């Protein structure tokens, strides 16, 4: 019983820490890509603490404040489903399909909170966020099914175990891996798909009215979200690590490459983004799915 409590505390903290380090590197990497010096490495910590210590916080109603809390709770729940070497808590009580649905709690919480602000930018931001989610969900589902079919199991821990000693899904299902990489861009709302929080058009979309500690909690939620998405990608395609160190190296590698080609693209219009997701990634994913079916 004690071990579960221990895991129950340190897994979210671990996830938060990893997510935090990624955002630190992200600021540095984007700065270096733009040939500028960039903020000090621990700038995100300053930002977070400054937000949390704001003297005056506004709220548009109970649901406005509950939104970030639900989102964070959902992300913490999802974190437990990712099999971390040695610290698996919930992987038994729900499988990959459950994880896909649990990740929806996060966006539901944020959408509810932002919706309550009655701000036009927020509503436009949410409708774009959900449309984008609908967009990238199709290829995501196809590649998840192709992985499930290949390993004949829906349990994430078994998938990781099946990829042990080297033959990762990346080598057996290269197409799905590529599509997974593109889809992670959409899921994280990274640059080509940051139509949701486009500062120029919808004033940071759903977060328009969020400030102070609410925004702080949303940033924490974003860190968890980055951790979950990248950990899922690593578990599905890069064989998840046997120990924590390798796990972090692989995740950082993926994140590094993502950040490199993040700044290069222009922003998609929302219906072009959905059309893009439903055209190329879906076709490629279907091809790899058929390959798995035939194999």
């Amino acid at each position: 019983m004690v071990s579960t409590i221990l895991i129950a505390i340190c897994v979210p903290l671990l996830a938060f820490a990893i997510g935090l380090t990624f955002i630190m590197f992200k600021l540095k990497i984007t700065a270096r890509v733009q040939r500028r010096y960039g903020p000090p490495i621990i700038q995100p910590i300053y930002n977070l603490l400054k937000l949390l210590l704001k003297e005056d916080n506004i709220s548009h109603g109970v649901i406005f404040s509950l939104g970030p809390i639900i989102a964070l709770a959902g992300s913490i729940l999802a974190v437990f489903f990712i099999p971390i070497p040695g610290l698996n808590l919930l992987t038994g009580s729900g499988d990959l399909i459950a994880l896909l649905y649990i990740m929806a709690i996060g966006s539901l919480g944020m959408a509810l909170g932002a919706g309550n602000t009655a701000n036009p930018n927020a509503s436009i931001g949410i409708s774009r966020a959900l449309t984008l989610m609908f967009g990238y969900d199709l290829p995501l589902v196809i590649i998840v099914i192709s992985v499930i079919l290949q390993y004949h199991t829906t349990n994430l821990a078994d998938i990781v175990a099946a990829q042990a000693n080297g033959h990762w899904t990346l080598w057996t299902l290269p197409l799905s891996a590529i599509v997974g990489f593109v889809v992670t861009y959409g899921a994280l709302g990274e640059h080509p798909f940051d139509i949701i929080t486009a500062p120029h058009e919808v004033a940071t979309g759903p977060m328009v009215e969020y400030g102070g500690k609410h925004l702080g909690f949303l940033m924490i939620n974003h860190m968890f979200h980055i951790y979950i998405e990248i950990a899922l990608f690593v578990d599905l395609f890069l064989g998840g690590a046997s120990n924590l160190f390798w796990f972090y190296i692989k995740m950082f590698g993926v994140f590094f490459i993502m950040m490199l080609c993040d700044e290069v693209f222009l922003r998609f219009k929302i219906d072009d983004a959905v059309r893009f997701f439903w055209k190329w990634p879906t076709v490629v994913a279907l091809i790899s799915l058929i390959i798995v079916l035939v194999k």
Partner: protein
Amino acid sequence: MEKMTQDQVRTIANMLRKRSLWMIHYCTGCGAMELPPTMTSRYDMSRLGLAPFVTSRQADILLITGYLNVKTLRRVITVYEQMLDPKYVIGFGSCALNGGVYWDSYAVIKQLDRYIPADLYIAGCMPRPEAIITAFQDLMDLIDSGKADGYKRYKRDLAYYKENQRKVLG
């Protein structure tokens, strides 16, 4: 003892606020052109922890980058009141100081801090990015020493500010 922790918290808080200043720049006059160079790789203000933000709720500093006429003052006041509390105002150039070249115009406001408490002015008819960077560093020192208390002054003598605003906006 309780008072002591109060000060400790405040100093830590000021130290943090100094290091991560998010600014919303109300580009009214010709000062807005000076900001892109300060943000991008030539002068790179983000190394000081500053970052441009879009909504008033998320911003700490309000930059008034030029002359404010009666119409834009009404919008600036709304934005200022929507910002969350430890907030600072920096007035760019001479137009915010005393109306600048438009001193005799029927529309332009002559003195910014009669309507909203300005913590810092940057002299010059549109200061260059170096001046802006030094201004930010001065603001950081002010915050650190706790003297940047524009928002406290606004709250303390709100009636005075409101009276002035009513006189101009009608």
